């Protein structure tokens, strides 16, 4: 659509131009995104805020290559994603993206260690490499001692930390988190945020996070506000509102 916007910015990791998303057809059609332009550089920590139904999750799914836009262009690391096949997007997720969900989404009856090693299995890493990288990731979220516990034996905060370990175990470029603290009390929520901040600071992982809580968004360096499927404002934290 808006090809002019795609004169790639050299230091942008992610570039959205004129992204729209329509659910359903004909009478029932609903436009969840109505032309979103967004550019994110390597190493940023971006919070996406906005009222319920404003299209935050829809945008995250497209950013996470789980879904494709109805129109518009999406460049990831300079490569067009919107025209990729299902398998190409799966490989892109496997190699460059990590996901953290509101509901943790760990495999049931599976140890923390096996959960964390799962993405490495799909990448075809050897058992030894899986073990080493998995334990390193668990160590970085402070759960080395819980490696053999299954998710039902872990608290919510611990489960979310295992999920973060699983998301970063492959050293992804981008970590996408849709309301990662939504199911946690505020103390655990802040612990998770400290963890994300350190991931961003120490490992240089780009983080995109959806939240509707201002004190959670405050951990990010940049806040993007969605209203009615469009970006209402986009500012660095610390700038005047």
């Amino acid at each position, binding site marked *: 659509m808006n090809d002019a916007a795609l004169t790639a910015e050299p230091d942008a990791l992610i570039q959205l131009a004129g992204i729209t998303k329509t659910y359903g057809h004909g009478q029932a059609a609903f436009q969840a995104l109505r032309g979103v332009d967004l550019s994110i550089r390597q190493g940023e920590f971006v919070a996406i805020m906005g009222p319920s139904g404003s299209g935050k999750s829809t945008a995250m*799914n497209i950013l*996470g290559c*789980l*879904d494709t836009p109805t129109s518009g262009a999406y460049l990831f690391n300079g490569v067009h994603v919107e025209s990729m096949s*299902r*398998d190409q997007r*799966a*490989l*892109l*997720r*496997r*190699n460059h*993206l990590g*996901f953290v*969900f509101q509901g943790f*989404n*760990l*495999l*049931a*009856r*599976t140890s923390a260690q*096996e959960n964390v090693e*799962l*993405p490495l*299995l*799909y*990448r*075809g890493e050897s058992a030894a490499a899986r073990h080493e990288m998995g334990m390193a990731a668990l160590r970085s979220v402070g759960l080395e001692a819980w490696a053999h516990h299954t998710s039902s034996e872990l608290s919510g905060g611990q489960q979310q930390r295992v999920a973060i370990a*699983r998301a970063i175990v492959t050293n992804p470029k981008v970590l996408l988190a849709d309301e990662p603290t939504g199911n946690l009390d505020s103390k655990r929520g802040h612990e998770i945020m400290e963890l994300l901040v350190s991931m961003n600071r120490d490992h240089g992982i780009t983080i995109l996070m959806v939240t509707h809580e201002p004190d959670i968004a405050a951990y990010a360096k940049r806040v993007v506000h969605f209203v009615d499927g469009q970006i209402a404002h986009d500012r660095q934290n610390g700038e005047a509102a």
Partner: protein
Amino acid sequence: MGWTILLLALREIRRNLMRSFLTVLGIVIGVAAVVTMVTLGNGATQSVSDQISSLGSNLLMLRPGQRMGPGSGSLGAPSFKAEDAEAIRVQVSSLKAVAPTVNRTTVVVVGTKNWATSITGSNSDYFTAGNWTLEDGRLFNATEERAGKAVCIIGATVRKELFEAHSPVGDTMRIKQFSCEVIGVLAAKGQSAMGRDQDDTVVMPLRTVQRRLTGKQDVNTILISMQDGASSEQVINQISLLMRERRKLSDNEDDNFSVQDTKEIAKTLSGAIGTMTALLGAVAAVSLLVGGIGIMNIMLVSVTERTREIGIRLAIGALEKEVLMQFLTEAVVLSAFGGLVGLLLAAIACYGLSIVLSLPFLFSPSINLLAFGFSAAIGVIFGYVPARRAAQLDPIEALRHE
């Protein structure tokens, strides 16, 4: 990728042992049923042909009356006499032995023990025709046959029931009013095709039984053993012509006797058992198919149950074909494992039943291989639909699934 997928599949199976067990139950039962049916059927066929051949090779049985179907017994048809047997011996060619027989069930007493057994009157040809071998003592001589002496040859069961470990030859048994000297003991033959104990028998000269037990000159069955290589068709023809002549049947009258060829009986019996086996095998094969549908059903349920898990795998970057292969591998591993357990069960069942039914245990590699291959194939066929459904799930929808 292959090992990874196998690892993933095995983990899933281990994680849900109960579900996995229920999934394969149908296959286990199906395979066990098919293999047991076919193995026992083969054993039964083998056993029948063994027993028929133990009856005597090239054996014909001449009986009064027509044996066409139920109700058409020997009623009304005149019995044979010893002279009929003699006529056959003299006039029909290519024969080895002709034994007129008469039977009576009577209690036999030795000392304080008594035993009800089947007494057969015949001549020494009887042992040739019936493939009997003598274990101890001797057969009748011509004088004893002619004079109707009270001498008898006993089967292994009678010996076991009435005599101690020492040789019974020379001892006497009481049969009704007379006593009878044991002159020989027969080697054991085991059960007949109909399940009768062939060794539960006492054989005496024909004339002795006719005079002292039946009181009639009648003969029940004439056993005729042909020489090797003789055409049973020709021999039967000769016997039939001779009997029609001796019984004065006119051209428009039917035979009032029948000649049966044990080979034909064996063929008919084995054929019937073969048909039974095929039928039972087919029923069992249907149960195997039902087992396959069971696998599909439970795998489909499991795809729904595991939708969120599939969503996680897809989000993490699993390819469609990896998810497909994982589910397919789960189905195949399960059904192949079920097949193996089924084979094991069948082996145990066949072993036990072959003892209970006293059939030979004929292990057939081909039916075992076939059943195993079939169960694995069922995994592929019935695992495919659920696997494809899992692989084609939309990751976002799947993750949202409760």
